[in-house]
């Protein structure tokens, strides 16, 4: 089994319309997979589907080798899950919550849970309902890591937390992954946070996966070019042009994909001068990918 998560031709209906349509997705074993998408693109729905919490209309889902939803309980025993919203009993204390959670998991690591509780500075007798947002976020990560999961599914685990807490939570996650080699699916719209951490990227838009590839391929293929004297109607190019925008003076800005450095020579065969090749960061790459996908589906429609 080379994929921790394999989704084929998945569809899900919410009422009349498709929330997820013909979704194919592969999360390789050992990857830290950044699941990107704008609000409402279907990230949380996809996560609930792959945890067996929603019934698919069509398609197949395999998680850690188990068919979901039919064998979801076997998969869930090996998954640490941090949901989008806190789902804990507010009247329980931190230590009661930890004991309660431990009862459901055969692999619960008492020592690790205690070490994390101290590292996160959570007080044992504190009631969950009175935790700050940051403390609650830390407790959720603690509960997910202490089950010694082979797969961590994190739905916006750090969104809405302050930078100090985000740092603590991510550090704990990465230390765990270093020690255990677990697979991580991390959904977020905090794109720049994923930039350091993820080695795979999937981009969801309107319930479809519009890109899925290793991070370095995602980042390196798309560039912004500053060009002077660009041809009005462009001859066939060896790279794909996602966008052309006017710049300052005679300059034009092209956003291109499938770029390789040796393609700079193409400009010598034209009257245009390539002034600069700008690397896009993950956020810009994400935005350009979305824009291009939407243009393409607009043309198809």
């Amino acid at each position, binding site marked *: 089994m080379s994929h921790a998560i394999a989704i084929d031709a998945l569809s899900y209906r919410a009422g009349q319309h498709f929330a997820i349509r013909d979704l194919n997705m592969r999360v390789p074993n050992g990857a830290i997979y950044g699941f990107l998408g704008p609000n409402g693109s279907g990230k949380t729905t996809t996560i609930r589907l792959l945890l067996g919490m929603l019934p698919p209309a069509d398609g197949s889902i395999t998680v850690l080798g188990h068919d979901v939803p039919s064998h979801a309980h076997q998969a869930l025993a090996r998954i640490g899950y941090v949901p989008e919203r806190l789902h804990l009993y507010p009247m329980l204390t931190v230590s009661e919550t930890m004991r309660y959670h431990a009862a459901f998991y055969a692999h619960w690591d008492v020592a690790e849970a205690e070490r994390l509780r101290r590292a996160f500075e959570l007080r044992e007798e504190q009631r969950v309902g009175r935790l700050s947002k940051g403390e609650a976020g830390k407790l959720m990560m603690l509960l997910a890591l202490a089950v010694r999961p082979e797969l961590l599914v994190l739905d916006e685990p750090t969104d809405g937390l302050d930078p100090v807490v985000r740092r603590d939570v991510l550090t*704990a996650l990465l230390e765990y992954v270093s020690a255990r080699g677990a697979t991580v699916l991390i959904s977020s719209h905090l794109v720049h946070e994923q930039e350091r951490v993820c080695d795979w990227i999937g981009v969801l838009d309107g319930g479809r996966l519009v890109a899925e590839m290793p991070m*370095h391929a995602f980042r390196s293929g798309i560039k912004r070019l500053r060009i002077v004297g660009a041809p009005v109607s462009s001859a066939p190019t060896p790279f794909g042009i996602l966008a052309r925008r006017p710049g300052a003076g005679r300059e034009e800005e092209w956003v291109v994909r499938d770029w390789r450095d040796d393609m700079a020579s193409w400009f010598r065969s034209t009257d245009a001068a390539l002034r600069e090749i700008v690397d896009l960061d993950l956020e810009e790459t994400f935005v350009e990918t979305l824009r291009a996908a939407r243009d393409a589906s607009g043309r198809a429609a």
Partner: protein
Amino acid sequence: MFDHIDPRSPTPIYAQIAARVRIAVAAGDLNSGDPLPSVRALAGSLRVNPATVVQAYRELERDGVVEMRQGSGTFVGTLSSDARTQTREHEARRLVRELLEQAARLSICPGELRRAIDTELGASRS
């Protein structure tokens, strides 16, 4: 030593980490036998993918800068002063190459560049 790792840089993070170690070794901040941080500690503190740290350490091992010892960690290898000089030369030339590439894109000619370097060197000396 690992401050200013920039995930937005076109230079991959693993290459940035490896470069930091090379520079620290060349500058004499790290000596033969000194331990490097564990993969777990460095991935945690930089908040980067552990595979990225492993990739950096593997590259350094391949180049003879460090030794990865099973179970006990990663250590700076035995270095000659030649190796230090070489690394410094290598880094200096890499910086100049970057400068030349950027200058070429802005159509700055070599004469202009040389004058600018002399001016800046003079300014930093005084």
